[in-house]
């Protein structure tokens, strides 16, 4: 604990030096970080809205990592989820609740399938999963770019002679996730509830069920798992698919959340896929621990975003964020270990 404090203090000190160097005031910056993330109902809402997709992604990453398949393609899976969600939300003429469900489902299934492709390549040709999920992210980015640049696919409609942007139309309001409370008051978005439910379910799944036991066994010793009757390919594939599914769901949640612009845009994931993976890694693949870590990341995001709005260069906000993340990971190591290796 004291070490966390020490590292964080160091991170903040470095940040402060940078802020002073640009003529800003570290105290005000700190206040802005707090104000934008936890100071009032609005800020807390924004934080919680960020936390939802982060937690979903992290919960998924916990599943695959437990099975010993390291999925680092969440960024692409989130995009694919958002793509499928947007397609469903824009193309289907369903009543509100059904449409919401279909958007989520489409996102989840599409991304689950996308992730499963990596498992398939692994099964058939022994393609390394870390690497294929990474590469698939870049493919996903271009798939989305294609979809939002192609008028007969999902590009926004042309009104008059104005030019159109590479993005989809806004989803109809009936496709959007409901919230308890509304802006600027405290807003409890359904996405957060889904995310917490997902994290808890994953925790229960991994620790309390036979399937979870097998996943864990597979992750720790595949040969022993196969020997005791675990169908390695099936479990690997399903773990990867679940992880993709949750990332895709995160994409759909993000798409339909009040936080976002409710349309698919190439950079629309805001890098949450990478951050979600970081959350899981920092939580050491424990889904319940991922809840506070996701909240922490959400605080850094909302605070950082607000900090940028005070005129501190947004890159500085990114730097502060990165330094704080390092500060939170670093202290897990006992000093003793620094001597060896």
């Amino acid at each position: 604990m004291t070490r966390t404090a020490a590292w964080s203090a160091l991170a903040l000190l470095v940040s402060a030096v940078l802020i002073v160097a640009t003529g800003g005031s570290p105290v005000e910056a700190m206040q802005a970080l707090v104000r934008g993330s936890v100071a009032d109902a609005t800020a807390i809402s924004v934080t919680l809205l960020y936390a939802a997709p982060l937690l979903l992604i992290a919960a998924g990453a916990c599943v695959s990592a437990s099975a010993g398949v390291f999925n680092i393609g969440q960024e692409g899976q989130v995009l694919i989820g958002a793509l499928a969600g947007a397609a469903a939300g824009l193309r289907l003429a369903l009543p509100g609740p059904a449409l919401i469900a279909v958007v989520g489902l489409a996102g989840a299934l599409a991304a689950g399938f996308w992730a499963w492709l990596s498992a398939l390549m692994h099964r058939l040709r022994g393609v390394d999963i870390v690497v294929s999920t990474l590469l698939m992210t870049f493919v996903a980015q271009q798939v989305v770019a294609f979809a939002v640049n192609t008028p007969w696919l999902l590009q926004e409609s042309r009104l008059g002679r104005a030019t159109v942007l590479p993005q989809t139309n806004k989803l109809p309001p009936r496709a959007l996730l409901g919230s308890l409370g509304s802006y600027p008051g405290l807003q409890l978005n359904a996405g957060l509830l889904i995310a917490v439910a997902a994290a808890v379910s994953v925790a229960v799944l991994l620790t309390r069920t036979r399937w979870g036991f097998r996943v864990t066994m597979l992750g720790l010793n595949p040969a022993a798992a196969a020997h005791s009757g675990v169908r390695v390919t099936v479990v690997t594939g399903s773990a990867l698919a679940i992880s993709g599914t949750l990332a895709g769901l995160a994409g759909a949640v993000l798409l339909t959340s009040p936080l976002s612009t409710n349309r698919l845009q190439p950079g629309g994931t805001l890098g949450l896929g990478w951050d979600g993976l970081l959350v899981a890694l920092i939580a050491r693949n424990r889904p319940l621990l991922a809840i506070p870590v996701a909240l922490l990341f959400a605080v850094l995001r909302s605070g950082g975003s607000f900090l940028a709005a005070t005129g501190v260069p947004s890159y500085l906000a990114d730097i502060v964020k990165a330094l704080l993340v390092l500060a939170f990971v670093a202290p897990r190591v006992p000093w003793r270990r620094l001597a060896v290796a």
Partner: protein
Amino acid sequence: MNLLDDLGTVLSSSLRLTAPLAFAACGEYLAERAGTLNISVEAMMLGAAFSSVAVAGATGSATTGLAAGVLTGALIGLIHGNLAHRLTINTFVVGLVLNALVLGLTSFLIAGATFGSRPPQRWPLLLLPGIVLLTWWLVERSRWGLELRAVGENPRAADMTGIRVGLRRRQALLWCGALAGLGGAYLAVGEVGSFNQNMTAGRGYLVIAAVIFGGWRLGRTLVGCAVFGLADALRLALPALGVTLNSQLLIAAPYLLALLAMVLFATRHRRPRALGKPFVRQEP
């Protein structure tokens, strides 16, 4: 224009697009042979691109700029190495954070400075064959390389034998940083002559793809770089030659190619067994 000229244009363009990748790929290859799947290579290239332009602008010497780039890359490698192989923070966490940090820092720092552009300096290209050979020699023939390979394949055995696993991996990252730095600096000082925000634009990830494409063999890794460079050169030259293709498909081409190569050859490739796995001394 005749066909031969067009071919020449595409080939020279692909050489220029390949060179930064090739420099960095030599480094990434070495780091991966030692067991680090280093995703901060993007940060190394970008950081080096920035500092090389800054220093070249300040001193007026491209050589000094290149040197600064190499040092910056190495510094990032040093940081990565110490965080991942001393503090044993997960190497992906380190990589992701460093990428974000360097992108933030360079974007932030150019805000205060204008470097202007200088004429490109292509001579560092001549270093490439030497560096490839040196990397090959280091990995395959030197004692250091033998130890690196041992560390990448079986760190526990290496440790028992008295090799300092963490140290070797840190050194590998240092080399990787220096070469990725050279790649980034070459891109900025050698090709473009100026720096702009996020100018490496994902080349680091392409480098990782190249090492995978190459199945952890140096020669094939370089072939991978060349293939990616050629794909980009074609993409950029085809419109001028009067051919248009879907641009998204072309941008995704290197990644699709890497995936395809893996699907075709993965079963024959053997990645270093301890790749991406942290080493902490514990139970035998």
